[in-house]
């Protein structure tokens, strides 16, 4: 059974049709790329899948559950984590706290537990701390645990954001332009990081990316959309030679 199925997804913003009749299937443990020219509707699709927008039409099934209409935190609780194009960490909170707060959905204690510091609160706090340090160790970020993200270099912030997304133990990780703003040295690090995450955690990754180097070297399958509609779907080799894709990116040959 597919991990994520997106059927006939359509999103209108007033008169603008951002996404129209978009279909996609992501299998467990698959690394899929989503590319397209600027304004093609890629981030809109991610926003719908993570529950932030309610689609005009269409259906999303994740792990056998329909997620359209669920609040974003519920969708995340089911196991869809994401990162953002322009890093959205909580900048005045330590890296460690960033990861702790991401466990909010599974905290498992109430306001009263928290004020009375019950046994349940103490146990859950210990468990969450252990989990946070585990993920920081795995991504070699432990030395930054007490730092504020706003004081960290851009490449490290990216890693922290990926760590925060991974800390909720997702089955599907959505990466929205992970390479945006990185220099060439960081880029190689990012590619190996994503490959390592994919192999280590055995999760599915769905990635929007403009850097062809990243997409072509990582993805097993690539989807291309233009003006909100899918125009191609295939292996990196097939995509590179697809005339429709070349037309969408470079324009018509004849002119």
């Amino acid at each position, binding site marked *: 059974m597919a991990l994520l199925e997106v059927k006939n997804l359509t999103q209108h913003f007033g008169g603008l049709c951002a996404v129209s009749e978009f279909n996609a299937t992501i299998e467990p443990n698959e690394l899929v790329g989503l590319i397209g020219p600027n304004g093609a509707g890629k981030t809109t699709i991610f926003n719908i899948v993570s529950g932030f927008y309610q689609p005009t039409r269409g259906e999303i099934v994740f792990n056998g559950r329909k997620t359209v209409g669920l609040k974003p*935190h519920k969708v995340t609780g089911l196991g869809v984590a994401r990162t953002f194009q322009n890093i959205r960490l909580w900048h005045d909170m330590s890296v460690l706290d960033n990861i702790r707060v991401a466990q909010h959905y599974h905290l498992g204690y109430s306001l009263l537990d928290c004020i009375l510091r019950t046994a349940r*609160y103490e146990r859950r706090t210990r468990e969450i701390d252990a989990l946070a340090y585990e993920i920081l160790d795995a991504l070699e970020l432990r030395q930054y645990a007490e730092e504020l993200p706003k004081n960290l270099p851009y490449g490290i912030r990216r890693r922290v954001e990926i760590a925060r997304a991974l800390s909720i133990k997702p089955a599907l990780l959505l990466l929205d332009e992970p390479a945006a703003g990185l220099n060439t040295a960081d880029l190689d690090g990012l590619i190996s990081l994503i490959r390592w995450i994919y192999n280590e955690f055995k999760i599915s990754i769905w990635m929007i990316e403009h850097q062809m180097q990243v997409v072509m070297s990582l993805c097993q399958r690539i989807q291309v959309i233009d003006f909100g509609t899918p125009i191609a779907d295939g292996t990196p080799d097939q995509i590179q030679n697809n005339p429709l894709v070349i037309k969408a990116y470079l324009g018509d040959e004849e002119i």
Partner: protein
Amino acid sequence: MQRFTVPLLLIAALVCLAWLSQTGVINLYWQSVFMYMGINIILATSLNLVNGNMGEFSCGHAGFMAVGAYVSSLLTVMVLTDDKAMGFALLPPSWSLAFFPISLLLGGLAAAVVGMLVAIPSFKTRGDYLAIITIAASFIVKSTIENINAIGGARGFMGMSNVTKAMSQTIDLPWMLIWVFAGTVFTIWCLRRFLSSTYGKGINAICQDEIAAEIMSVNTNKMKLIAFMLSSGLAGIAGGLFAHAIGYVNPGSFTIMKSTEVLVMVYLGGMGSISGATIAAVVFTLLMEGLRFVFPALNSALHWAHLIPDSYQVSQVWKWVMIPLMLFLLMHIRPEGIMGNRELSNVFPRLKKFYSFK
């Protein structure tokens, strides 16, 4: 050992305060200053939860205070005293010590329910628009009270002094001072524990990036509801204490001026800092009381030097020039407030050796 320093200090302070008041070393005036201080600390720290930690702009705190003040006053007067309007006492006066804290908590609860009036619109709006809604909510509360004649309408409501009298007749102690002290400690204790937990940090996450909070598994609507209800509930407790400390309430005490005073305290202390709000509340109360003596002195000095005409008197109204001026200067010189968003233990790390706050 460090675990006990804070509770021990607090108990020592309370015993000292009660003993000095009882023996008359601290006179009634200073007792009331201390009570205002405590009430202001509760108001400032609770508003700080919404304005400082959650980054919303609530400016109707006096409205919630009014709800708590009226509900707890009505309850104590109705249950504990023979009152013309409210009928005979339901419980003997000796029960007053047990019933008073319950009435305070019920007042807080009622204020928290009214706080929902603001919390629910906050799901969809934020910023300036929500600020307007908070003002509207406080006006709704004030006008409602003004128009209910059974509780005195605009004239106000009294009879709480009988309750405090009943308390000191049962056991002879300065009870209101003790209750205000307990309420202040309770408020700081609750807020501190809530905000230092991962659960409470969800509120800071909403402030720093609401979209990220929503998508990274924080139930933002629930957290906003909790923040607004906790904040207004604690303001309600402050209202109950205020009403019993002066023995009289009227809607005129809970105008937008009162909300502004609390706002000034929050911004003076620094956004999102509990110790900042506490320090600011103490400084502000002392300043307000100090100004009470400064203006008459200034008045006679200016008259003596013939700098102002004889027909003009420098009155206490100048207080309302001083407060905005203070806020203006503060924003100009130190926009982040006394403490910024740091706590006392961040500024003086050595303090951590002497206490642990759990």
